């Protein structure tokens, strides 16, 4: 018996010694990327893991954005949170307020000895995820913005110039009328109606969506999207809906599919639809900037950011944070960035990767892919920097609910927007109370 035990112990010791001198540190990464984007996440991780030996990134798909975040919250409460968590942009304020639960990315990078130069990044992208003191809070992995996709074949059929997409809302209305006359059943539709028609609409027209610079100034922000300009736009869309020029196709990205199928001729959507359109569309398509009202001073400014960023969770070991920093450093690499941007249609986050993509002739070969970048690369104003509000998930739902009442003719634009603002402000007041600084 004794001899057996000794032999076993010796065996284990030999095994332990024969392993790598230093064990690899595993870094858990929870994300929400599916399909081709999941492949992208796996490739990024594999690329990093192959580039060095000390750390190993382990990506795990945890469901959609609004499933991953609650999963991480539950895990945090149970003490089993991942190191890196992908959070959609509407969750930003919630994550920022959770000071004890997250570690700012800027701090993680600095502690590990990496230099963080804010000037290297595209302002509208990184500005959204930066604290008032200039510290980067989360890492902008996949940022998108709003664009107008249009079907060139249907444009031709309707006698419209396929290379001259409408640039203003009045032009878009005229184009929609022509498309309808040519037999298109769905001339114009929109995905993410709150994001495209209220949020991005606001920054594009350099108009406040919420006070306190859209929430950047503090948690006392209140909604302001019932201004005459907003009412005018929603009224305009309601009229288009009545004439069958704008066809509502549901919440979230439900309207993307009827555009891919060629049923809808124009659609405002996320710029990250590029890869899917390219894959699915059996027609010639174009990408154009979001339309605007030409009589509004300051328009067009810049569109608002969407997508998600990577947050570093608190309470982990020092060498694990080193691994996280090394991974982020790998992601910032201009070549990795440029490749990701060209592959996914998400925005480049550093200027170097944008220039690299431009030099490689990618935008010339793939017309329209630069639209989103050009909308975002401008100098932002306090009103257009982005929208960062507490309880934003619920506010988005309120925007959906109230806008639906307008499209169905139950409420006027003014009534619906007033109601959305007052309902949303209630949530903001509660958030302010729960997150007193």
């Amino acid at each position: 018996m004794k001899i057996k035990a000794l032999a076993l112990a010796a065996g284990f010791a030999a095994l332990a010694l024969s392993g790598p001198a230093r064990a690899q540190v595993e870094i858990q990464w929870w994300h929400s990327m599916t399909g081709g984007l999941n492949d992208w996440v796996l490739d990024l991780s594999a690329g990093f893991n192959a580039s060095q030996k000390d750390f190993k990134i382990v990506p795990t798909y945890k469901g959609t954005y609004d499933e991953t975040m609650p999963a991480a919250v539950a895990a945090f409460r149970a003490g089993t949170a991942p190191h890196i968590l992908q959070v959609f942009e509407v969750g930003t304020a919630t994550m920022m307020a959770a000071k004890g639960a997250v570690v700012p990315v800027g701090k993680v990078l600095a502690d590990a000895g990496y230099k963080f130069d804010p000037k290297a990044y595209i302002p509208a992208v990184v500005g959204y995820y930066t604290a008032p003191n200039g510290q980067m809070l989360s890492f902008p992995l996949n940022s998108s913005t709003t664009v107008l996709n249009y079907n060139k074949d249907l444009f031709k059929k309707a006698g419209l110039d396929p290379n001259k997409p409408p640039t203003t809302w009045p032009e878009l209305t005229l184009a929609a009328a022509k498309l309808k006359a040519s037999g298109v059943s769905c001339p114009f539709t929109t995905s993410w109606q709150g994001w495209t028609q209220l949020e991005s609409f606001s920054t594009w027209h350099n108009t406040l969506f919420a006070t306190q610079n859209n929430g950047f100034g503090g948690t006392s922000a209140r909604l302001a999207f019932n201004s005459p300009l907003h009412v005018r736009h929603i009224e305009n869309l309601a009229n288009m809906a009545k004439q069958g020029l704008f066809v509502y196709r549901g919440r979230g990205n439900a309207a993307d599919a009827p555009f891919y199928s060629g049923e809808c001729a124009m659609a405002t959507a996320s710029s990250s639809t590029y890869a899917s359109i390219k894959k699915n569309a059996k027609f010639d398509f174009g990408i154009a900037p979001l339309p605007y009202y030409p009589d509004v001073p300051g328009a067009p400014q810049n569109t608002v950011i969407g997508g998600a960023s990577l947050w570093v969770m608190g309470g982990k070991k020092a060498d694990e944070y080193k691994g996280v920093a090394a991974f982020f450093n790998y992601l910032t690499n201009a070549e990795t960035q440029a490749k990701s941007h060209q592959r996914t249609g998400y925005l480049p986050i550093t200027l170097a990767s944008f220039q690299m993509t431009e030099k490689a002739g990618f935008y010339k070969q793939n017309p329209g892919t630069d639209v989103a970048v050009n909308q975002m690369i401008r100098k932002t104003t306090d009103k257009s920097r982005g929208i960062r509000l507490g309880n934003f998930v619920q506010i988005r739902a309120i925007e959906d609910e109230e806008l639906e009442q307008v499209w169905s003719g139950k409420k006027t634009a003014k009534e619906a927007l007033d109601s959305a603002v007052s309902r949303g402000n209630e949530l903001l007041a509660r958030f302010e109370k729960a997150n007193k600084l």
Partner: protein
Amino acid sequence: MASEKRVVFRSGWLPWALLAPQVIVIAVFFFWPAAQALLQSFQQSDAFGLTTEWVGLQNFANLLNDATYLASFKTTAIFSVLVAGLGLSISMLLAVFADRVVKGTHIYRTLLIWPYAVAPAVAGVLWLFMFAPSIGIVSYALRAVGIDWNHLLNGTHAMTLIVMASVWKQISYNFLFFLAGLQSIPKSLVEAAAIDGARPWRRFWTIQFPLLSPTTFFLFVINVVYAFFDTFAIVDAATAGGPGKDTAILVYKVYYDGFKALDLGGSAAQSVVLMVIVIALTIVQFRFVEKKVQY
């Protein structure tokens, strides 16, 4: 009546020990979560639970001040009545027919029981697919007969959709119980009535229906609870509470606020309200409706 023969435990602890497993299961899976919900309904905390503040009745006050929350009581009432009413009557009808079928009984019954194995979210998606405004096969047929189906903007259409999906999902369960109930009715009673010249409809109405009443009552309670609590996945998949808030039933908002919006205090307060409603409803059912039941 002769006095019943009663077996008495001599030992003081044995009965408790025998009861313990059941008591523990109920305490851990029912009373503890319910107590947690009650506790959380008086608190407000950030998403990660880093700071928790005792807010008293604030969460409940927020609910009462929310006009859309009050409106969802009406939505829930309409939804529950429709789901329980339609669910019970359709499955009773199917059970009566299945009871009379002579050939192929097994196939018929098996097919009727299948939908019970479908997860609620899947049921929601299935019906959503058939009724999708642009690609759904049913909406296509409806357009052919002149009905412009659009549950994305028409509240009545949306309500119809989730009622159909919820009823369809529950029919199997009801059907099983009704069929068992019908088969336990002595054949001689029905035959005697037939000999007396009662037509099938009269036989059903005067003999089978009254004798089924314990089953019907049980299923009524179960179906109301089902409509109140178990339907959020169907709503989430089919309409997400829209258009506007036209299909936002109470339990959907509990789910949404708690699991998607991470407002645990508000969500807990709503589940306490829901708990109170269902307890009240069950008491009413047992006190008043049960009196009409013939055992």
